[in-house]
């Protein structure tokens, strides 16, 4: 499946962008030219050979802070997505099997979590629970989890009631074989789409929280925190927010694009297509659907 996804040009670009960003997140500390927390004599300096992206209001090197901050911002959103996967997918699959009371209860909770004003709750709960980065991740993860709940529940329902699973059971296949052969193929693509989406959403929320100064202690740099401090000195450094904004937009765009590519390749119902050429034909058909009616108009 990975190869099929990467055969799309947009997916390759998105994966490249995300790879660079994850690389920065993992090795940012080693790449940083200077100590991200050490102030210098030049404050609010412009870009120079010594400070590629200039310095902030305490004379700290912006490039180093950006690289150092990528760890919390990016790896944090991956963690959020994984928490959401566990919290959402497990009850989603169990809701099909554990009886109607459990099903009703989990459905109502999922409805509620979807209807909540996300950011207000994330801010409030994180701050009340002690204002740490792990509290932030758990809160945001739980708030996003209905996405996985719905996706995994729908996929499980489709598989559990399908005739080919019944046929396989009757012909004596073991549960493990059915899961490997039928269920996995059906459940994996929607989960992958949801995972890519959640990383994007989680990234936006974690960045918003750090922008507000929630979930991190002050000297530690994050992309959101960098933007917040840039905001106060816009008059002196009008171009300072460009670098973090570009990084944030590139990350969100990469996640969305990857999610779209996985969806395109695996088809609407999560059905894996046989070869890439058919996937591409479908894509073109979706993009430009109305050549006939265009003439009729």
């Amino acid at each position, binding site marked *: 499946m990975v190869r099929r996804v990467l055969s799309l040009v947009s997916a390759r670009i998105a994966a490249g962008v995300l790879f660079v960003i994850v690389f920065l997140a993992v090795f940012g500390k080693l790449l940083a030219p200077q100590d991200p927390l050490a102030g210098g004599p030049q404050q609010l300096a412009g870009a120079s050979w010594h400070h590629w992206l200039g310095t902030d209001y305490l004379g700290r090197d912006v490039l180093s802070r950006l690289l150092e901050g990528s760890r919390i911002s990016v790896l944090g959103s991956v963690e959020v997505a994984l928490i959401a996967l566990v919290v959402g997918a497990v009850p989603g699959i169990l809701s099909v099997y554990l009886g109607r009371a459990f099903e009703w209860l989990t459905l109502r909770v999922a*409805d509620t979590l979807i209807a909540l004003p996300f*950011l*207000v709750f994330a801010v*409030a709960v994180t701050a*009340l629970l002690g204002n740490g980065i792990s509290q932030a991740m758990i809160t945001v993860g739980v708030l996003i989890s209905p996405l996985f709940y719905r996706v995994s529940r729908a996929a499980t329902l489709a598989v559990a009631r399908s005739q080919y699973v019944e046929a396989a059971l009757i012909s004596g296949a073991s549960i493990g074989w059915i899961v490997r052969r039928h269920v996995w193929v059906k459940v994996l693509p929607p989960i992958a789409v949801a995972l890519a989406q959640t990383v994007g959403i989680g990234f936006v929320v974690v960045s918003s929280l750090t922008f507000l100064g929630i979930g991190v202690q002050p000297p530690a740099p994050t992309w959101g925190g960098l933007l917040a401090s840039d905001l106060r000195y816009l008059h002196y450094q009008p171009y300072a*927010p460009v670098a973090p904004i570009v990084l944030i937009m590139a990350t969100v765009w990469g996640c969305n694009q990857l999610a779209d590519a996985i969806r395109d390749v695996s088809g609407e119902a999560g059905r894996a297509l046989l070869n890439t050429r058919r996937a591409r034909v479908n894509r073109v058909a979706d993009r430009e659907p*109305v050549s006939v009616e265009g003439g009729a108009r």
Partner: protein
Amino acid sequence: MAVSAATYPFVSGRRPGVVAARVRRAAGRTLATLARSVAIFVPVFLVATFVTFSLRALSGLSPARLQLGEDATPQAIHNIESQWGLDRPFLAQYGSWFDHLLHGNLGRSWSSGVSITQLLGDGLTISLSVSFFALIIGVVFGFAFGTLAAVRRTTWIDRVITGFMTVISVMPPFVVGIILVEVFAVGLGWFPSAGYVPANQGFGLWLAHITLPAVALSFDAISVVARQLRSGLIAAYRENYVTGAIVRGLSPRRIFFRHVLRNGAGPALSVLGARFPVIIGGSVVTEWIFGLQGFGRFANDAAQQGDVPAVQGVLVVSILLVVSFNLIINVVLGRVTPASQRGV
């Protein structure tokens, strides 16, 4: 229906009777939609308020720490906690809190002792004017872009709009907010960069202060509505009844408004209901950027202070806003596309 047929016999003037019957049927359908929507949202409201209330127990915060500081004697802590009624069993506390809630009483702030309803009142006006302005911008521009892209589909106009929507969909509100401050407040100086002026001190001034925050909040709604509307309208244009209408020689305008828009706008409307929480949530960030003392800012400050009843009040109000907005959307949706109610 039987009652209405008895009260309005057929003989008594044909036209008024028909009109009245039609109005009554529409009203009945709207009421039925409303009842069904309420049935969906009551459990949502109950679960959400329960989660909100259990925040105090989860966080373990108490008014004693706020008022006495870290090194208070256990006896003093106990006194204050019993004064706030916190030594009672959890469910009893929830019961009386919920009872007060239904009477519009959100309790008192731990830090200042002032009624939270009163504290929230001013902030709510600011937040609501910004949010609804954002919503109007989102609906107007979302529908304009979506319609334009669908009518001129597969041309360069469509491609430009779709590309633009992709770009603004990846911009979170705080990014848009900073760009707007940078360009329109610092760079061009057209709008004030922060603060708020009530509408009774000058409408133009008020509008100037809420424009930038509203625009920052609206980007998400614009992109979502435009994309949904575009795909909805294009799907409607593919239907056989549109081909039939073209063959019958109806004008493109009539086809668009009577056949396509009505059938294609459903998904865009329902997605608008789903995006309203995002607008309300985004106000936390935009109010921070633009220095507005709205209820998002209030939530942020109260939460960082550890003032649990104030936070609960804000959360309950935001839940109420979302639920009532979704009720309205459901009713509108039921009127525009009755088929959308079948699955509910």
